[in-house]
């Protein structure tokens, strides 16, 4: 056997080591991904992604909880006084600055329908369902919702006013298919 010569030049053996090492790492990555991705939402879960709701069935001042993607969605028919209260608020007092109008979508005529507020009924703190009760203190100090788990208060626009929740109640993607029917899970096609 010949004595190996000391050299900084990469040898054929170095090349084989690096190439085979890279192939093993890449192969392990390809193998690992299906094992991880299998836990993501399945095809049938994803396919149940939209629902339709007829808002004309609501009474003024009331709220209906629709079920969308396994989550509760609040659909609330707000009174004129409540709309006025939500609109007159100075957004600078808010933790998550949003005007009431920014939390609504326009109807087929291009105008907002401020009487209907749609929001996902999941507290943005740790996922509890906030309570609704406009006639009582159970709905919180701001006439909206109150989360019993850790004490977050939302106003009637679903904006966080007090408590540990970091953001406003999420507004799901939805659009007015007609004057009275909304579809949740999809934005209006522009």
């Amino acid at each position: 056997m010949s004595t190996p010569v000391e050299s900084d030049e990469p040898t054929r053996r170095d090349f084989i080591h690096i190439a085979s090492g890279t192939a093993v790492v890449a192969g392990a990555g390809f193998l690992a991904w299906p094992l991880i991705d299998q836990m993501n939402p399945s095809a049938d879960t994803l396919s149940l992604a939209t629902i339709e709701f007829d808002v004309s069935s609501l009474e003024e001042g009331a709220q209906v909880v629709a079920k969308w993607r396994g989550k509760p969605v609040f659909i609330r028919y707000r009174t004129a006084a409540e709309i006025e209260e939500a609109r007159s608020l100075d957004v600078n007092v808010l933790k998550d600055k949003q005007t009431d109008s920014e939390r609504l979508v326009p109807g087929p005529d291009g105008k907002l329908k401020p009487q209907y507020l749609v929001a996902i009924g999941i507290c943005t703190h740790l996922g509890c369902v906030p309570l609704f009760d406009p006639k009582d203190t159970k709905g919180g100090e701001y006439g909206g919702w109150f989360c019993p788990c850790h004490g977050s208060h939302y106003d009637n626009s679903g904006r966080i006013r007090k408590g540990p929740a970091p953001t406003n109640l999420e507004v799901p993607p939805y659009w007015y298919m007609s004057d009275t029917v909304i579809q949740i899970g999809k934005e209006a096609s522009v």
Partner: protein
Amino acid sequence: MSGQSNYNPKTGIEKWLDARLPIIRLGVDTMIFPSPRNLNYWWTFGAILAVMLVSQLITGIILAMHYVPHPDMAFDSVQHINRNINWGWMLQPMHAVGASMMFLAVYIHMFRGIYYGSAKNPREMIWIVGMVIYLLMMATGFMGYVLPWGQMSIWGAIVITNLFSAIPPEAAGTAVTQWLWGGFAVDGPTLNRFFSLHYLLPFLIVGMVILHIWALHIPSNNNPTGISIKTKADTLNFHPYYTVKDAFAIVVFLMIFSYFLFFKPDSMGHPDNFIPANPYSTPAHIVPEWYYLPFYAILRAVPDKLMGVVAMFASIGVLFALPWLDTSKVRSMRYRPLAKQFFFLFVLVCLGLGWAGAKLPSDLVFVTGVDADGHEVGLTFVWMSRILTIYYFAFFLVILPILGLVEKPKPRPASIEASVLGTDKGDN
């Protein structure tokens, strides 16, 4: 395991086996090894935990024969086990109460480790492996509580998985929670995978327990004096001396376990968990199992969501660093007059955090007066949690590091033997 083997195979079969698979030698050398002769009853909780782990494994495997991990059937299948399965009335509570008993034992085991300096040099790895076991126990216990699919099960799962939504959405917070759930909310896929993982994790715990005991056999046990073994006169063989002592403690512990199992099987649970899970209706007051309450109080003590989650995980993470945070050269707090007082205060703080975790944040600890609207005012539990959380972290991050440098320890005995026989004059 350090030092020579105590095993001398005598029969031909034993010699034949020992030359091929020395498994009897492993067993003998694990059980017959020198332990300090002064171990007190606080040292029996390791053996108690081993018994409880086996009990949980056996009852768990049996329950899995009858349990159905489906959102429409899980709740009923647990009722079915309790009402129809032969001995199910005993086996299901044995598993559920057993989890509480195991946490009770592990907390005593951990407090003992802190008090007697068992985490410190040269036992850091025993402590760290033990902390990994504790984390695995918490994950296992949490997922096990979800399986009966009652109101506390699902809402506990919702609140805990939502801890990961504290990660901002742009940093994959949403992707992580949906991956954990297998959907857009806690639902059937979540229940099914929790069942799978709840079955897996205890076997990882068994693996870590083997490492825990292996690491223990290198320096042998710590002891109430905290001083190291110097001569053979300081020791007794683990078997039969401590196997017998442990067995006695196990019997006493099992009597306490039996009291809860047969007379108060539901006392550690929550009545709301007898209501089937409803993802659209949050119970008025969500509480975790009692053994997580102190951490739940720390979570709620911080007004910011992300920082609350960070504080909660940090409260466990800081325990991993304990061997280095406790800077005192003296292991046992028996000889540390100041550390002893701070330690007992720390135990009270942990209990106080547990109390606060069980209450609504706005509930009052005590009333100091009445405000203008006639509502009672006073110290709220959220403020109590804040004060206690500060002490909890200060104990590890400020008190223990500084105390080791400034405290003047009391004289320690010359040896373990001297402390036992009372021949010690406290000359060092």
